[in-house]
């Protein structure tokens, strides 16, 4: 029992990342009908927003402190981050410490801008083209974005720590009444899970309970009719693209402490999130979320030693196997709408 709970917990954080990326992909596909291979790159840009903000906050100036000397007897140069000099050492230090959560605020406008530029500048011209062309051009874009990031940040992963409060793990098992030290869970992963739940809830609430969301949903169901009613649906879809980019970016920002961002993290996630979208059902938002968590949890179950000894290598391929089975038996995915991309 405790092992099962542990695996479910382990699967949740990866599942949350899959779910967030897949949610964005589905938003784009459902609204604009575009297959966006550059979505993984958006996730990566989000993670690098966190890196950038923590670098900015750590900008510091050097002063020569005559009271301290280094080992040669010269006055020591002391680096003081601007943050500490502006806000006082304590508040400054905690601002720097909280750089990743602060990056959430920083990344939303950045990602929305990136999304707008992408949609207006490139993807707009591909609505009427074949899906293959869309895949190809966004694939090219993904390469470009990845290389640009690599040019500015280098090829090595950049560690971006979470705030001190969330470092370390806690004993989740003893809270639930199991033996202590059986279910140990890192704080940040729990934070990630709750964060993604909030984001997903936010997106759904936005679509469900606002007039804007209602129009967007109507547009997803029948774009032409909504257009005929005199609503500028294109503009709304562009905004949804920005929202989708922001969701991917947020997933990336919060993922930075779990896995140090590097320039190809987007590609690594992209393949999996496509599989997630397909399993969930192309164009179905709840399906994407459900499949994200489901596959995340399945993956962590498959990496249990008991199962690995039964079927060696299953942890590496479980997601793909599930995807293949689903695609062949239920082509519209778990919760796909009937008739959408069902061929």
């Amino acid at each position, binding site marked *: 029992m405790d092992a099962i709970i542990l695996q479910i917990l382990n699967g949740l954080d990866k599942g949350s990342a899959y779910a967030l990326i897949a949610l964005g992909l589905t938003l784009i596909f459902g609204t604009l009908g575009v297959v966006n291979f550059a979505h993984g790159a958006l996730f990566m840009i989000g993670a690098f927003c966190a890196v950038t903000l923590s670098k900015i906050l750590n900008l510091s100036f050097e002063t020569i402190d005559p009271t301290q000397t280094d080992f040669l007897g010269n006055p020591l140069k002391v680096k003081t981050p601007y943050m500490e000099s502006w806000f006082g050492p304590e508040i400054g230090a905690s601002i720097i410490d909280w750089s990743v959560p602060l990056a959430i605020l920083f990344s939303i406008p950045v990602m929305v801008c990136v999304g707008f530029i992408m949609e207006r500048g490139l993807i707009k011209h591909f609505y009427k083209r074949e899906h293959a062309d869309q895949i*190809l051009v966004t694939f*090219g874009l993904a390469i470009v974005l990845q*290389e640009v990031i690599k*040019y500015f940040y280098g090829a090595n992963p950049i560690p971006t720590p979470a705030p001190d409060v969330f470092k370390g793990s806690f004993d989740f098992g003893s809270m639930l009444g199991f033996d202590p030290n059986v279910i140990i869970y890192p704080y940040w992963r729990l934070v990630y899970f709750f964060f993604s739940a909030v984001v997903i809830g936010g997106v759904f609430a936005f679509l469900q309970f606002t007039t804007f969301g209602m129009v967007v949903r109507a547009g997803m169901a029948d774009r032409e009719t909504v257009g005929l009613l005199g609503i500028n649906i294109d503009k709304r879809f562009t905004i949804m693209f920005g929202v989708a980019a922001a969701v991917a970016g947020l997933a990336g920002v919060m993922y930075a402490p779990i896995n140090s961002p590097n320039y190809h993290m987007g590609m690594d996630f992209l393949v999996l999130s496509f599989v997630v979208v397909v399993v969930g059902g192309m164009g179905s938002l709840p399906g994407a979320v459900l499949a994200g968590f489901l596959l995340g949890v399945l993956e962590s179950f498959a990496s249990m030693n008991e199962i690995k000894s039964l079927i060696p290598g299953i942890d*590496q391929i479980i997601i*793909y196997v599930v995807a293949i089975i689903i*695609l062949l038996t239920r082509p519209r995915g778990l919760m796909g709408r009937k008739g959408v991309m069902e*061929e």
Partner: protein
Amino acid sequence: MLGLNKKDMTLMIVVTILTLSAPFILNPFPTDSAMAQFNAGYPDLMQRFAIFGIFAIGFNILFGLTGYLSFGHAAFLGVGSYSVVWMYKLLDYNVIWGLPLAVVTSGIFALLIGYVSLRRSGIYFSILTLAFAQMSFNLAYSVLTPITNGETGLQVYNNDPQVLMGANEATSPHLFGLVMNSSAKVGVGAWEFTFNNGYYFCGVIAILMFYLSIRIFRSPFGMMLRAIKSNQTRMAYTGLNPRPYTLAAFVISGMYAGLAGGLLASMDPLAGAERMQWTASGEVVLMTILGGAGTLMGPVLGAGFIKYFENIFSKINDTVLHSWFSFLPDGLEDFVVIIIHPFIGKGWHLTLGILFMLVVTFLPGGLVEGGQRIAAFIKNRRKKDDTSAKTEPAE
């Protein structure tokens, strides 16, 4: 002749001549001149031209004719490489055992994967093939280590059986004693030309494969494949089942990929799992699209283009740039170098990505279509007719 019409025969002859004289053509600059770094006439690169040409020709039979975009062709490349290296390990270094096996095993793999993936079309097909390729890649890295030697890559060790190994047989890949990586160098004036056995081996196979692809393009079977691309439903209504045709195309292109992988291992007796990664599949897609999908020459051009510029661009550095732009005033020179800097050297992929986006957006027919447009433009200007510039559909 050879079942080709006149136009195709001309193309075939041109390709043959170009391939056989590549060591001359690709080596236009004298060895000691400053431009020598743009020479592509060295064996390693020429072999890559031929091998990736084969890979792209094969991919084009699937994507160019049927329109099914596979994102998992690198898996077959890897399978081919592994089969050839296994033959080195078990029998001996003669490539004659490994290459047919590479074609057969990759064909079987393609049959299995294709049978399943081709039940879906469009984006689902792309994702299914991607999933299969990633699966093979992950398995090759982890569980299949006894067969693939995992991260280290498969290679020949001293204690391998090599049952057919003769007493004084070459200890690198060869064809009945013709050692692949040995080459003859001929100096003509300031030029030095390298004639490499491996290149000619790959080149001859590439010519044969090119011939085969012309025959496929012109055959009734090729017609069927085109029918699948243009309208599958109509084809089904005419009473033809498209699936056997697509499956055949998939298997053929898988076999091409296997052969290319086998040749990679014939030039360098190594096989690593990274050859199967999906970025490698992406590369062949890039080559085909860049050159012109659905055309005969396009994929070959694309493969050559990408491999050549990959090599050349990676070699250019800031010093070279400074020497090029030294005629400009100092400030301007530095500025130009700074602007170009991100696109060269390690930034080659950036250039490639931008180029690829431009091609997909503005020139869906690839380099071949670009060439045709330019040719049509020149023709029009010469004639000064008011006939509008019509672009031929890429063919």
